[in-house]
């Protein structure tokens, strides 16, 4: 009885936690359609004025184009570099390997203001600060670790006999990489691409330092935030939320889908493989 009560309490509490996490997102959605300029209760009535205002603002349109132009090459580069780093960590043993992995994974733990200041002062010495390139370079630094971590998790599921078999069949290491390892990682590569794109699309602090006049969407939002109360933020926010969640959800579905398929194919006949797959826990 006590235990069951505790269990229900736990579920209710978890529900509240999710409410806390989702409340600001939901409120932003609601207020983006609210006629009142000020986000307060009671609601004043339905309007799409803010969306209209947002998507005709040339600054917002430019920022949107710039964000897309930056996030696609960022995602491509971080996924490629992230794969290289993950494969090195998986396959090779060398001196300083843990230092290497640390260097690869460290960037997200450095506060964004510090990264921003470092990037600004460094890139301005080589005349890159204030250019779109500066945003691209910094975003690859920040996004690469996410790609590496996701691909590394997938590689951990690979039977190392797979590569050895390929070598025994006279495939060169490069051929093995291309025809065996890459196809094995395909889904995690797509997932890494989408999630790094989302990371770049949302990053505001470093971009704010290095972008100069080349604002991206989140930098534009920051500028709005520094100004007056602006319902436009809710409109942009809801649009950006929808697209990032879309990207991340597809990315996760991709990294989860392969798993589900394999688990189904393996069936109960191969419990070991099934356990390997489910032991991975989080396939993010």
């Amino acid at each position, binding site marked *: 009885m006590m235990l069951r009560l505790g269990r229900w309490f736990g579920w209710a509490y978890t529900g509240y936690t999710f409410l806390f996490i989702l409340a600001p997102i939901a409120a932003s959605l609601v207020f983006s359609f609210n006629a009142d300029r000020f986000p307060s209760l009671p609601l004043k009535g339905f309007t799409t004025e803010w969306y209209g205002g947002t998507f005709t603002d040339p600054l917002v349109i430019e920022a949107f184009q710039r964000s897309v132009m930056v996030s696609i090459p960022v995602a491509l580069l971080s996924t490629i570099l992230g794969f290289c780093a993950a494969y090195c960590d998986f396959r090779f043993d060398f001196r300083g390997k843990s230092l290497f992995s640390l260097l690869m994974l460290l960037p997200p*733990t450095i506060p964004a203001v510090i990264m921003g200041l470092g990037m600004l*002062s*460094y890139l301005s010495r080589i005349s890159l600060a204030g250019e779109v390139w500066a945003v691209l370079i910094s975003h690859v630094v920040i996004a690469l670790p996410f790609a590496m971590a996701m691909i590394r998790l997938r590689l951990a599921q690979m039977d190392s006999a797979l590569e050895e078999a390929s070598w025994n069949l006279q495939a060169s290491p490069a051929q093995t990489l291309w025809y065996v390892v890459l196809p094995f990682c395909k889904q995690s590569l797509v997932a890494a691409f989408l999630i790094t794109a989302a990371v770049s699309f949302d990053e505001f602090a470093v971009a704010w330092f290095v972008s100069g006049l080349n604002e991206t969407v989140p930098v534009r939002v920051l500028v709005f935030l520094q100004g007056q109360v602006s319902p436009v933020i809710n409109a942009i926010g809801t649009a950006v939320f929808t697209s990032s*969640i879309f990207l991340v959800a597809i990315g996760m579905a991709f990294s989860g889908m392969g798993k589900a398929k394999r688990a189904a194919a393996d069936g109960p006949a191969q419990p070991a493989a099934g356990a390997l797959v489910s032991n991975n826990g989080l396939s993010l």
Partner: protein
Amino acid sequence: MSSNTSRRRWPLLLPPLLWQLTFFLLPLLFLFVISFWSVVNFRLEPDMTLKNWDFMLSRSSFWSAYGHTWALALGAAVVTTCCSFPAACSLAFTVSERTRKLALMFLVVPFFTSYLVRVYSWQAFLADNGIVNALLALVGLDGLPMLNSDFGSLVGYVTLALPLVTLVQTMGLAQIDRNLIEAAHNLRAGPVRTLFEVIMPLAKPSLVVGALFAFILAFGDFVAPTYLGGGAPPTLSNLIIDTTKSGQQWPRAAVVAIVMILTLVVTSLAAVRLAYGRRK
């Protein structure tokens, strides 16, 4: 074989290594270098001076910002850890594997969505005539001042860190051997005693690492203290932004940045030692 693999590994190893060395490590080291440079006519000039260090470290306003930031980040670590623990226990022990994975996915998604917009949205909840006070008025309570206070900053930090901390804790708790919990039960330990003497010691690494993540995120965040905390008294990240954006005093801002990095390194080492015990 070994010379063969070493030849094989360079084409894969070099690109990410060079990239992170050139665009991650060098910029950070460069911060250290420019902290000794001087600013002449709003331009950065190479120099070898200690005056930036002297200027920042001799100010009481710097040290009060330091103390304020430390206290806020520690508060964020404690509050986030306590808030997420019951949810993590619930997710780790009382739901099916499938539900847990779905819940964790829901937790991770907001991590990749705009923090700025979420903070702006919290303003609507916490303002004097905002949603929370409107709800309080409905049940006949007086409104509370919440925006532009440390409480406001904390709400922002928890928003930022809660998903990640819950994730880390849940994964740590889910790995605990259930037999140990059953053994405690069979030995007539009550739920509270089991929690404190079996579950929490076993989950210590994930609890400490989660708290460390919250600390790091809060220590460096400038959005919550600016837009929910009111910006006064400033935090170290506020100080960096003000020093950089007004007056182009990059060397002085670099001093603050280096002090922050050192603090984070020391805190992380201490936390890792705490998490993984004294296994020497």
